[in-house]
């Protein structure tokens, strides 16, 4: 059994198939998810700020779009409908970290 897993794992790694290791549900095919975009979308600007317009233009339209490590939001639409923050390398598609978006937001001081 272990041997089979090693073979599958090496196949996945070689072909860079994107498996997202869901914190609650375990490894899931990325095809179950809908890609939302840069994880910076969690931090919605304050609409009452002095420069709210500039902040919302930035939030809505401008992206870092890095080549390399990218933190991004994936929505488990065909699963438990949780939002995840996935750290993925955009040059290799390798996934190096998965967290619940809720936990990430709470760590940044959000209540919900």
């Amino acid at each position, binding site marked *: 059994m272990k041997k089979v897993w090693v073979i599958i794992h090496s196949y996945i790694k070689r072909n860079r198939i994107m498996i997202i290791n869901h914190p609650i549900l375990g490894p899931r095919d990325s095809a179950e998810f809908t890609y939302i975009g840069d994880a910076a979308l969690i931090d919605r600007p304050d609409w009452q700020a002095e420069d709210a317009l500039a902040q919302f233009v930035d939030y809505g339209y401008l992206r870092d779009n*890095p080549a390399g490590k990218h933190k991004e939001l994936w929505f488990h639409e065909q699963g438990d409908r949780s939002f995840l923050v996935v750290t993925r390398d955009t040059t290799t*598609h390798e996934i190096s970290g998965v967290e619940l978006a809720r936990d990430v937001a709470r760590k940044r001081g959000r209540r919900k």
Partner: protein
Amino acid sequence: MRYSGLRVIKEALTGHKGWKPAWREVAPKRAYDYVIIGGGGHGLATAYYLARNYGAKNIAVLEKGWVGGGNVGRNTTIIRSNYLLDGNEPFYEHSLKLWEGLEQDLNYNAMISQRGILNLVHSDAQRDAFTRRGNAMILNGADADLMTTEAIQTRYPFLNVNNARFPIKGGLAQHRGGTVRHDAVAWGYARAADSLGVDIIQNCEVTGFRIEAGKCLGVETNQGYIRANKVASCVAGSSSRLMSKADMRLPIESHVLQAFVSEGLKPILPGVITFGAGHFYCSQSDKGGLVFGGDLDGYNSYAQRGNLPVVEDVCEGAMAIFPMLGRVRLLRMWGGIMDMSMDGSPIIDRTHVESLYFNGGWCYGGFKATPASGWCYAHLLATDTPHEYAKEYRFDRFEKGRMIDEKGVGNNPQLH
């Protein structure tokens, strides 16, 4: 050297000893009037029209790899001008008109074939939308033809018009659309630009911009510093990467789009067919291979390689309308990186840095736009005013709410 039939005969009789390289190998000079970053179709077209239309001398095109090695060699070679919105249609129609005269203009055989493009209709609502689009095209001087199912069946008897989910109820055709040999576009523009004195410098990667007091003075490259009066970025696919060196964040995400070629077949498909509802479009190359593709993978990527779920999706789309393809084998597949902009339309504009210009955000419509993109970008570089056909392609349209969103899906780059 001018290419012609007579020349071919002469060379054949003299042992093909007279052919010369299509463009010169040059080392970069220390300063240029114009430095164009990116030796793809758009960059080379820009250099060519800058030299031809505006008499500019002293132009360099810097290419980090080789000419024709980027997206101009990775697309599915389709040309068309079937857009709806005022900001887009005149631009793309101008592009199609330039395609029609391109081979004579460049003295280069780009195998331009106006075999027509057909967008399939599956419902009354879609027919209404396509009728509207066809009218918008005609108003802008393009051609459009709303075809009935019977007319489509006569032309393409192999189509499955009775698919249970997406029965074919007609289609919008543009008979002037078609396909082009994409490598030849890059080579043809490179050769024509070179003959007007443009320096094409391959293996020259821009590593940074030298910006002082808000003005771009030149570019740092792996072949040393190059001074320039004007610096023009033209690297769709890598725009964010390059412009981040000038501290710019763009309204762009980079996404991977896959394309496929089947084994060679006898001529079966006279034209381009798009089955948008099923995420599939297809044409047949002159070599016989079916050239086809579908949707984006849908996540940020610079890998030039996609994943298998999309391969399956595209092949399912193919089987839905071309059941006869069931036994055809896939020969090659690859991915290209798209500058997906926030409204699905491109940007040709100045930047906040003086004498630094930007051309990008072509989503997956960059190839057909090549001539007009070069034409309008050259106008912007030479005159510092936007060209009439590209005046809506501004950076500030997002802030001002003047988006050019053909599909109306908002700021979701992966959905355009």
